[in-house]
C-alpha cells in the first residue's frame, strides 16, 4: 500500500517550567498503523482483500488551539468509487519519538536527567517532492489476504481462551500441539533462546464479518545462533523454514514466529530475589525492541503474531502472544484449540 504524506509532523518539546526547548521533525515507521487500519476494514468487509489503494496520514487539529496543533492523526485509505475509510489515533503514538528527543536533549544539556518534559504535536503542509530521474520502477504486487471461508463458531466450540481477549483483536486459534512442541523445544535447550516459525491459515466468516487465524504448526528455526539473551535468525533460517513449508504442502502460510525467553537465566545473572522475580516485567508478556524488529522485518502484515515461551524459576512454562493492535505491538489473548478442525 502506498503511503502519502500531505503533511509533515513535528513535536514541539517543553521543559518542566514550560520553556520551549525546540521542535523536531517526526521520524517514525508509519507502515504498522497503516497496515492495521487496512486490515481492520478488511476484517469487516469494508475493504477488498487485495493489496490496493493508497493511505494518507492526516493531522487531526486540536479543538481549541487549531492549526498547526494536533490532537492526533488519521490514517485514511482511499478506494476507487467508494468513500474512503479512516481510523484516528492519539498523540500518545508520538510518545516514543518524544522520549528519544528528550534523551538527546539531556545529552545536549537542554534538559536535566529526570526533569519532566511535555510535548505538543504540530503539522504543516509538506512540499511536493519531484520524482528522482533514473530510479527503479517498482510495482507492489503483494498477494491478497490468503483467506478461505470458515465458521468462527466451529472454532470457538473447540477453543479455550488464554490471556486477556480483546474483542477488537483478530481471533487467533493455536492448536494445543503447537504449544506442546514449543514447550519441548524450549526445555530441550533450557537456558538458551530458541525459536520457530509459526504457520497456519486465515479464515473469513462472512456471516459475522470477521477474519481469524488458525496456527496449525510450528517449524523449529534451524541455522539460528542462540544465547541466553538473544536469538539470531539468519538468512539460512528463513530458507529452511520456506523449504519445510513447501514440503508440507497443506496450503499454510507463515503467520509469525515463536521464541523462548529464559527469564530464570536472566534473573540468575542479575542475582534477583525470588520475590523480585515474581513481579519482574520480564517474567511474562515481555516483548523486546529486538523482538519487534523481527516482526517488522519478517512478518510485516497486521495479522501476524508472535508467541513467547516464558521460562521462569518460579512457575511452569507460560505463553504470551503479541500482535499489532492499533499500529503498536501489544500483548494479546488467544484461543487454544483441542482436536482437529476443518474450518467448516
Amino acid at each position: 500500500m502506498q503511503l502519502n504524506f500531505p503533511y509533515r509532523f513535528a513535536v514541539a518539546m517543553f521543559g518542566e517550567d514550560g520553556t520551549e526547548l525546540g521542535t523536531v521533525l517526526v521520524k517514525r515507521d508509519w507502515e504498522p498503523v497503516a497496515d492495521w487500519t487496512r486490515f481492520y476494514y478488511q476484517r469487516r468487509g469494508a475493504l477488498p482483500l487485495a493489496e490496493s489503494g493508497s493511505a494518507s496520514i492526516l493531522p487531526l487539529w486540536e479543538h481549541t488551539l487549531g492549526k498547526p496543533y494536533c490532537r492526533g492523526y488519521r490514517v485514511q485509505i482511499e478506494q476507487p468509487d467508494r468513500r474512503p475509510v479512516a481510523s484516528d489515533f492519539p498523540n500518545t503514538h508520538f510518545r516514543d519519538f518524544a522520549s528519544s528527543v528528550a534523551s538527546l536533549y539531556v545529552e545536549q544539556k537542554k534538559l536535566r536527567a529526570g526533569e519532566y518534559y511535555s510535548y505538543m504535536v504540530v503539522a504543516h503542509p509538506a512540499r511536493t517532492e519531484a520524482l528522482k530521474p533514473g530510479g527503479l520502477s517498482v510495482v507492489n504486487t503483494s498477494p491478497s489476504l490468503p483467506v478461505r471461508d470458515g465458521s468462527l463458531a466451529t472454532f470457538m466450540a473447540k477453543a479455550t481462551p488464554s490471556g486477556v481477549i480483546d474483542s477488537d483483536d483478530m481471533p487467533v486459534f493455536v492448536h494445543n500441539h503447537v504449544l506442546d512442541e514449543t514447550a519441548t523445544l524450549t526445555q530441550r535447550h533450557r537456558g538458551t533462546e530458541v525459536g520457530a516459525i509459526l504457520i497456519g491459515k486465515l479464515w473469513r466468516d462472512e456471516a459475522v464479518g470477521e477474519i481469524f487465524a488458525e496456527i496449525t504448526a510450528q517449524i523449529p528455526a534451524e541455522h539460528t545462533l542462540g544465547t541466553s539473551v538473544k536469538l539470531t535468525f539468519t538468512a539460512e533460517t528463513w530458507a529452511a523454514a520456506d523449504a519445510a513449508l513447501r514440503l508440507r504442502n497443506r496450503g499454510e502460510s507463515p503467520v509469525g514466529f515463536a521464541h523462548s525467553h529464559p527469564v530464570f537465566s536472566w534473573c540468575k545473572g542479575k542475582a534477583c530475589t525470588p520475590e523480585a522475580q515474581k513481579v519482574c516485567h520480564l517474567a511474562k508478556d515481555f516483548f523486546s525492541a529486538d523482538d519487534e524488529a523481527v516482526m517488522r522485518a519478517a512478518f510485516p502484515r497486521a495479522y501476524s503474531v508472535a508467541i513467547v515461551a516464558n521460562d521462569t524459576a518460579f512457575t511452569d512454562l507460560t505463553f504470551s502472544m503479541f500482535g499489532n493492535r492499533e499500529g503498536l505491538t501489544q500483548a494479546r489473548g488467544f484461543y487454544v484449540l483441542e482436536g482437529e478442525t476443518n474450518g467448516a
Partner: protein
Amino acid sequence: MAKVESTAEIPLEFSDVSGQKVFNVKNAPVANTVGELIAEMISVSNMNLPRNDSNGAPLTYQARLEREGRHLNASERIGDVLEAGDHLTLAPNIDAGMR
C-alpha cells in the same frame, strides 16, 4: 562465464521472507551489484523493510535466488547472476532477544 547481456535493465520479482510483501522491479540495472539492488529495494519508497535493528545498527539482508536455491553474494553483478523474471527473497539476519 559471464552471461551475454542483451539489455541494460531486466525485470525481477522480490518478496520478503513471509511472502506477505511482493514487489516487481521493471528495470534492475544489470551493471549494478546485488548489494546495491538490495539497498534500493528495502528503502521506504519501495518495500519499506527495516534498515536498522533496535539499536540503530544496519540490518543485513541477503537475496535468495529461487531458480538456483542459493543466497547471492552482495558483490555479485546483476548481469552475471540474474535472468529476466527471476524471483528473489530478501532474508534478514536479525536478533530477537531481551534488549
